[in-house]
């Protein structure tokens, strides 16, 4: 037994070690190559290790000048840095191979690529690859019914949503689907109208060839005279970029708009600007593309007179349906500007666009804006294309933080950033909104920096006549170390 005893003791020790190791708690984890890209509100992502930034612009008419006016488009590259930037612009059309241009952008300058001068086509879209992440790319769509400025995006997505489509009174709604990749994309489109959701057969399994643009005419697909046309597009294969080209011809709306659709749903949608007036029609179009009904709360912000105990307006948005909310119906809302927030506790499930129809000269102009998603709120915003009319407010800033924020607004001139004189020392109280006129720096790129998160919206003339203005979001800046 003498020889056996140490053997048994050691065996027991080893057994104990085994029991100890067996009891280790292992947390199953998943291998992560990259955190999923979360498409959302277009933003300017500045990371130190960027090899190349790729911007995808939604698309624009590019037939050129006609007797009605110009049907064209531009891509505007803004380089706010002190170093030159090199880029390659690829132009996608419906029936040709992509056209590739090399474009250099000097320091602190803009470079405009006139798309319809390069290629004449009913529609084109563009992809811009830049070697500097600070360079911002936006698209201007020229149209006789009004120009539209829209940011391009740095991400593609396999799902896109349009909350507000309008084909009433002969209005024209087209969906521009760009596939910039070398593989074909296959998309399925679901359309919700006031009659409920539908899945038109010809838009199921629709193939978007590699490196091309496809234009889906919703009227041709049977959606004529619809005051409510919401669209959900899912790419079962590949990733695409989707924009809408909307020409309002009546039914209470007039004007033209080209803008990106929303690549994702969200639980917060912010609008810095808004107006309640007798001659202004402001509506929120709330689309719920999910399978569950969602309760949405509409909160009016930035109105000094509104009571502190003001209750938000709650709405139920049924699954795959659209609810159009007239902001004028908010109890106690006073005339004047305001900001809006649409939110839900049901997670990212909504897409919200704001449609404002304002008087413009002898007529009216409708401006539709996709709100800023909650994760796009930022302390820094970049506005590459600004109004050339410095006398009127061109920027609207909403403080969305619960604390006062200080603002620094700078213009990018040939000498570098310069503070906008009228904005020095500005402080915005919680939920306060502010209109900023750019005065002598109108037309220059603008940087808005705040001590806390804000939302910045801009107003731009819709054509050279200066009659009527359209809203569009500035680009939130996201710096990644």
């Amino acid at each position, binding site marked *: 037994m003498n020889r*056996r005893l140490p053997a048994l003791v050691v065996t027991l020790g080893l057994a104990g070690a*085994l029991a100890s190791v067996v009891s280790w708690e292992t947390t*199953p984890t998943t291998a992560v*190559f990259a955190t999923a*890209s979360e498409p959302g509100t277009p933003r300017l992502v500045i*990371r130190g290790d960027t090899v190349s930034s790729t911007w995808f612009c939604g698309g624009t008419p590019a037939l050129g000048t006609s007797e009605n006016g110009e049907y064209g488009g531009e891509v505007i590259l803004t380089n706010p840095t002190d170093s030159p930037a090199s880029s390659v612009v690829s132009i996608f059309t419906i029936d040709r191979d992509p056209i590739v241009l090399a474009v250099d952008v000097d320091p602190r300058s803009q470079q405009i690529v006139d798309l319809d001068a390069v290629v004449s086509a009913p529609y084109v879209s563009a992809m811009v690859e830049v070697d500097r992440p600070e360079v911002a790319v936006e698209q201007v769509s020229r149209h006789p019914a009004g120009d539209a400025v829209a940011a391009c995006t740095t991400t593609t997505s396999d799902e896109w949503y349009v909350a507000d489509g309008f084909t009433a009174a002969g209005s024209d709604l087209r969906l521009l689907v760009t596939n910039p990749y070398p593989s074909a994309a296959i998309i399925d489109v679901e359309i919700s109208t006031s009659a409920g959701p539908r899945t038109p057969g010809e838009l199921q399994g629709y193939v978007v060839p590699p490196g091309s643009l496809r234009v889906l005419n919703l009227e041709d697909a049977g959606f004529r005279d619809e005051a409510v046309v919401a669209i959900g597009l899912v790419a079962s294969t590949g990733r695409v970029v989707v924009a809408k080209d909307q020409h309002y011809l009546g039914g209470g709306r007039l004007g033209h708009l080209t803008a990106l659709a929303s690549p994702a749903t969200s639980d917060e949608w912010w609008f810095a600007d808004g107006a309640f007036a007798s001659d202004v029609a402001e509506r929120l179009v709330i689309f719920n593309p999910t399978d569950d009904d969602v309760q949405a709360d509409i909160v009016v912000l930035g109105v000094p007179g509104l009571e502190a105990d003001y209750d938000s307006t709650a709405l139920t948005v049924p699954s795959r349906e659209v609810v159009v909310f007239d902001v004028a119906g908010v109890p106690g809302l006073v005339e004047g500007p305001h900001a809006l927030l649409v939110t839900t506790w049901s997670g990212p499930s909504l897409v919200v666009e704001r449609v404002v129809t304002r008087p413009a000269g002898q007529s009216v102009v409708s401006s539709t804006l996709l709100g800023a998603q909650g994760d796009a709120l930022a302390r820094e915003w970049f506005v590459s294309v600004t109004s050339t009319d410095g006398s009127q407010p061109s920027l609207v800033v909403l403080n969305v933080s619960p604390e006062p924020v200080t603002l620094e607004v700078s213009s990018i001139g040939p000498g570098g950033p310069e503070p906008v004189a009228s904005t020095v020392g500005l402080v915005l109280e919680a939920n306060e909104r502010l209109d900023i006129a750019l005065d002598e720096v109108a037309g220059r790129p603008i940087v808005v920096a705040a001590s806390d998160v804000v939302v910045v919206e801009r107003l731009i003339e819709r054509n050279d006549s200066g009659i009527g203005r359209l809203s569009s979001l500035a680009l939130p800046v996201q710096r990644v170390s």
Partner: protein
Amino acid sequence: MVAPSTPDGAPLPRSVLSGSVPGVVATVVAAPSSPDLVEALTSLAAQDYPSLQVVVLVTTADEDVVAEQRRRAEEILPSVHVRGVGDVGFARAANQILRLVEGDGGLFMLLHDDVALAPDAVRQMVEEMYRSNAGILGPKLVQWDRPELLSSVGFDVDRFGELDDGLEPFELDQEQHDATGDKFALSTACLVIRADLFRRLGGFESGHRFHGESLELCWRAHLAGARVVIVPAAVARHRGALADRLAEPPSEAEIERARLATVASLTGGFRLAVIVPSMVLLALATGLVALVRGRPRVAWARVIAPLSLVSGLPGILRRRRRVAAFRVVPDREVAGLQVRGSVRWSRFRRDRSRGLGSATSRVERDRSPLDVAVWSILLLLLLVGGRHVITDGVRPVGELLPFPESPVDLIRSHLSGWWDRGLGETAAQPTGSLLVALAGSVFFAQMGLLQTVGVFGSILLGWWGIRRLVPGRAGLVAAVVYAAVPLPYAAIASGRMAVLVAYASVPWAILCARRVADETQATFEHRLAHVARLTLVVTVAAAFSPAAALVALAAVVVVAVAGVLAGDPWRRSLVSGAASLVAFTGLVVLHLPWSLSFLDGDGWTAVVGAPERVSGDRGIWSLLRFDVGPAALSGLVIVAYAAMVIALFVARSTRLVGAMSAVSVSLVFLVAAVAGDAGVSWLPDVGVLLAPVGFGVALGAGTLYASFQLDVRGGRFGLRQPMSLVGLVALVVGVVPVAAVAVDGRWEQPSTTFVGQLDELLVEPSVDGDYRVLVIGDPELVPGADRFFAEGIAYSLVSGGRFDLDETWSSSGEVEERVVGGVLSAMASRSTTRAGRLMAPFGVRYVVVPVVDRVRSTTTSPLPVPEGLVDAMREQLDLRAVYSPASMIVFENQQWIPISAMLGAQASAASATGGSSALARTEFGDSRPILTGTSSWSAPSEAVGAGTLHLGVPFDDRWSVRVDGRTVRGEGSFGAVMSFAIDEPSTVSLQYERPFSRWLWSIVQIVTWGAVIAALRARRRVREVSMTPIIQLADEAVPS
């Protein structure tokens, strides 16, 4: 004439120089620790022959041992001469008497140290010499302990050199063989030979080692005209059992070789023309019979022995020339003394008629029908279980990747100094590739067959190793239980070559280490030989799996420590441990310069391989039943652990050491396996760690059986009896399910594999130029994954998308890690959408994400694809999704540049700049492939126009381009690869200049491997001790 004297100048003893009787010098060849020497010398001291001198030749060079033997001998025979002659074997030791004794006027009596003569034996033989005029005489040998039983009365010999003693087993001495007469050969246990004859014959043939000396000596005596006579009146007791007493008894192959060499050396020229072919045919026939009867080693020895006639031809010719010098009797007369027909056949028939079969040798007696039956069943299960693997070959799964098609190319690649792994680099290639190439040459380039043999061989090696480790029938039990461990079958199913290597090498490593330790009393040469064996075992294992080799060595250490705990002498364990350390050092040296690559920062990862998965999900119960692949069986094997533990309680003495070793090695490595499964990433693959666990279970089973036989059965009734019985029943229950793995016929290897599908899917490199494929995903699904991007994500670059054995070895690949890793990081952080362009200069044409390999990941239970991986690929503007089977996701890089190509204008301009931003902006699509199939050892040429010749390998100035006979040096291109300026249209070829160090390393390898192989045979090369005369016989020969 100078008077003879001893080395110290004293005159030689002249006691036998004169007188009426011839002097007899009795020469006892004694082992260093002979137990019977005292009795042998006592019998010599008691001889009634008046003129007898005794010389004891101790087969050691250790002076202390010789002095000790001298002291013991002189106590019995004060006049005895004792000399150490080195461990040279009986024949060469006995031959020393020719140098120790001067003069031909006397007789030599040559004895083993286990022969005790009757008091009148010498006298009887001398008298008979005079009566018969004999040259060689021998006594009747009876058994040592039972002198009533006969041991030897001389041999008849057939023409093939087969000996027939004419005795039945346990034959009583009833004077039935007491007629004095001629014999063809006598036992060397005791021979009397005329000194002049022995000198004329040149003594024994020194090439013999413990076998065949007698036949050769007597045959030559016949040729010299001397009679060989048995003298039954002279009696000697003989212990025999040489095989039991020798540390390394002569093998069956040695015996066969010695016999054939003797026949070829001594048979006359004309008869030889008939005898040799007959011997070859007989060898084949008897080999076949031996195989059928389940004696593969004997069969192999017999079949292979005729080849020794070719390899030993110079020695045979030399011996024939020597014989010609003293041959006086015609060959036909000598042949007349031999028996007709085949002694082997006669003996077989005789034994059958006695109901004994042919069991004559010790080994054969030990091999019971049960052994034969069990081994037959095991082999049958192996062959049936792997029948489809045999017919269709090993499927390329996991690490079981196809062997390269050409062993010659493999050797050329190995010697070139350029390793085409990943992006390629000037680096030492694994020694394993050279071993495979050499083995492939032996297999006449049938590399698939070689791989199949390797897979089956590793299993058989494991069984054989543990069978040799555990003596007796317990070894058979251990082998059966080892075979029942489902680990190797699961390893084959899941393509874990390292597990197979560990399964095969662990028993052998422990066996060799034990041999080293068991021979602490033996010579340095013996220990050296066994250390060399241990080194060779782990070195060969490390050639294919460094982790398996380390685990085997660790198992040796664990067993050594367990031995101390169980009461084994600490010195033995210390020697084992030291041997493993030496072996480790040896493997490092033998693998130079490849082993130096493991000194890099990530060397340990290269040793242990890719972490299997992010976190373990097998659990203890799966590990206990060796569930590392689809071929794992039900949990019944777990009950075999019970037997192992029970052995610890019932074993005694040395069995306790075995039981403790079994339990320790199992538990230690089980703890490691569980830890590895739980996510300890620096541990080797769980399957490799389970190999020693399986070994421990098998060793425990064998120990339990041995303990039951020796410690329990027949003892007093107590707890031991029921415990042992429970353990043995558990063994049976645990072993039976092994039959289930034979059903599938391929151990559940998938019929369709990821590697096979990939090979079919991708474009032939000859079509568009050479390219590489980046395979990235779960480390378990990426064949040859040796680069890690993140936890749970590995990647591998493979030329042409064809995985082969090369991919199982890890390369340093710093450039690969920097470049490809950098591109992957850019993709992951979404800092580029032009990863295709960034990878283009390296010829990366496809990016493949494995999803299902049908082993670890199946369609019903797929492993998750790393999060964000496919999305990141889809966001790349150059990667086109290619239609592919469900088992993988394939993207084609539309911007790839063939590995050797003429660049287009834009690419050519960009090549000088470098930098990822510039790469991302450059269009590469118009590059043209050239020199497809270029390698470091072959340089095809091709006519090209002026431009930039691109070579997609990391910059290395040993690459150059021959342009119409001129050499053009390369320049850095795209910041990492190479380009060559071709000024005008010309014929070009790419060439790689072999580094000079490659030659030096080749010499080092040859020297080191040669040294270890020489050390394996160290015991045969022993020093002979110089001898000077110590006895003087009469100058005149004994009158005939």
